[in-house]
């Protein structure tokens, strides 16, 4: 009945399958709007488990439908019934805020493959919480840094009116040294940006920064491209990811976006990941898939180094982050969030497929603004 998947690559070869030593509960979004992200994280994660050939990691996967109350309920189930050791998988910050504090308080480990809300990086940090992707502000800070190097001096910035949107604009302003022409909050789920584009046209800005995840970004880019406004646009990777880029089409070509990963990062792990992912699932991997993949590899490295029943040792093993990431070197900061390089990418067309190409480095070995507030 449950979508339990047993990593069984080796199991078939053994006479008696060893009992799983580590049980992982993955709560992610697999149905409804936004399911694409959850599916990518799951597929990336499971690919790493499969490639490792281990049979001692059991993964229980459940669909949160992007509803916080369902996510909490699933977390209860994972802890109470499935008795998992480690939880992971959540895509959205609001779901993470609902689940993470309570599971870490119950002594479970949580590895975040995507969401990195600021409270969990700062005052609300926890020794059992590890973020493998980024703190939410990171990519926006990188966008601000890129805007500096690109010589922009006056930005029009916009984001939806919700916490992640506020964080995005704050993040951009934190690193951007120029002037902010105007700061606009749009409605969450808004699909028509004609009004905002008209404001951009009238603003006298020399560049546009936007954070509009999912369908909002698609709508914005298509309408922006058609509006005749030709100011350069910068944004975080979320609106330019492999999954949705095809739906934006030509409108995205040439747009610079910031990301800690791209498929052309040159290291053997990444090459193997990109190739393996395409072979396994028949599509190009996304940012989210890479994060799922790295999360699984971090877990595997810890399982190799320590027994999960020894929480302190296991935590140390996680903190060491002794694994090869698709991003190259990987290290955690004091608040268990990555210290990493964030790149500027440009949207290009390879044959019929829209994808990204790295054009430079936006921020080197970047941590986050909240680490100092974290007392572990």
């Amino acid at each position, binding site marked *: 009945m449950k979508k339990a998947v047993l990593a069984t690559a080796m199991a078939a070869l053994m006479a008696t399958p060893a009992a799983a030593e580590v049980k992982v509960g993955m709560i992610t979004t697999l*149905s*409804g*709007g*936004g*399911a*694409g992200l959850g*599916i990518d994280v799951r597929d990336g994660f499971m690919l790493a488990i499969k490639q490792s050939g281990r049979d001692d990691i059991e993964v229980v996967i459940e669909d949160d439908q992007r509803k916080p109350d369902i996510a909490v309920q699933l977390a209860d189930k994972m802890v109470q019934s499935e008795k998992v050791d480690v939880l992971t998988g959540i895509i959205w910050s609001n779901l993470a805020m609902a689940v993470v504090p309570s599971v870490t308080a119950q002594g479970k480990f949580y590895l975040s493959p995507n969401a990195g809300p600021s409270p969990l990086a700062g005052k609300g940090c926890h020794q059992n919480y590890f973020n493998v992707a980024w703190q939410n502000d990171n990519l926006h800070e990188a966008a601000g840094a890129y805007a500096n190097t690109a010589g922009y001096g006056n930005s029009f910035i916009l984001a939806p*009116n919700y916490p992640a949107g*506020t964080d995005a604009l704050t993040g951009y302003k934190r690193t951007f040294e120029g002037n902010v022409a105007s*700061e*606009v*909050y*749009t*409605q969450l*789920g808004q*699909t*028509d940006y*004609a*009004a*905002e584009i*008209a*404001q951009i*046209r*009238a603003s006298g800005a020399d560049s546009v920064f936007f954070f509009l995840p*999912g*369908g*909002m*970004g*698609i*709508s914005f880019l*298509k*309408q922006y491209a*058609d*509006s*005749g406004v030709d100011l350069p646009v910068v944004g975080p990777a979320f609106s330019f990811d492999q*999954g*949705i880029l*095809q*739906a*934006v*089409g*030509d*409108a995205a070509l040439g747009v610079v976006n910031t990301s800690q990963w791209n498929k052309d990062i040159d290291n053997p792990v990444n090459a193997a990941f990109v190739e393996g992912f395409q072979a396994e699932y028949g599509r190009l991997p996304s940012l989210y898939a890479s994060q799922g993949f790295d999360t699984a590899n971090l877990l595997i490295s810890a399982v190799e180094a320590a027994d999960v029943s020894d929480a302190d040792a296991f935590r140390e093993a996680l903190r060491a982050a002794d694994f090869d990431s698709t991003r190259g070197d990987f290290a955690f900061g004091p608040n268990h969030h990555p210290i990493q390089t964030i790149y500027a990418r440009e949207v290009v067309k390879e044959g019929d497929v829209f994808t990204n190409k790295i054009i430079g480095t936006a921020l080197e070995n970047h941590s986050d603004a909240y680490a100092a507030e974290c007392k572990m």
Partner: protein
Amino acid sequence: MSAILIVEQVLNGLQFGIMLFLMAAGLTLIFGVMGLINLAHGSLYMVGAFAAAWVAGATGSFLLALAAALAAAAAAGALVEMLVIRRLYKAAHLDQVLATFALILIFSEGTRYVFGSFPLFLDIPDCLSGPVTLPGGIQYPLYRLVLIGAGILVALGLWWLTTRTRVGIQIRAGENDREMIAALGINITRLYTLVFAIGAALAGLAGALVGAIQSVQVGMGEPVLILAFVVIVIGGIGSIRGAFIGALLVGLTDTLGGIFLPELFKLFMEGGAATQTGSALAAMAVYILMGFVLIWRPSGLFGSRA
């Protein structure tokens, strides 16, 4: 804030309103003639957008895509009417709400099953892309002007259909007296299917037209649906004229509210907080408008019955 910007924003509001009208017209027609609340109307909008995106992807022709959207939405509408909706005409509003809510679930997840979880691509045809310069030096996207024009054409067509054609006379007769048109020997079952299909086709058309400048994705219909309900409640349920006026009101309120409320709050609040508060209030503006209209006229601006 310059006059040009204001004119441009008014145009934006009109365009949004006219697209809402395409949705609201079908809803109000279906309610007026059959007395049915159709929550699944947003799903037909989605069906139109997906059909258009799929056909445009396969053939590269935007006109074919539009035709496909009309055909697919009308066919889906007719099919749903014959299988499900038909049994609901005499049912209580409560049953209608529930059954059409169920249809939303089936349509949304069914579409996801067929097309996957990622948005589809649909673009503006080349000949309509890019901005044009209007008198007064206003740069405005051509496609949006075309949308306004297309919407007005559809409104005129609907007006012609309901007042000047045989079918229209039957439809209006149906609104007034169901027994009467049955007595006149008109096949009421077929008339109802036809009306439902027309409403669905309008929704599908709106979905395809808007899909070209937005994201074609599962769940795209519900936000529009709720706004379309606001429109017909403001306009008076059953009245096409009311739907038109209501749609423009809602379109303008939503667009202009989003622009001017934050500016307004900046007069007496600090910048960031003002933008946030203003935007929050703008998001609620159309619902507040609806509340006021209903308090003033409980059956809407042009509504005859409660």
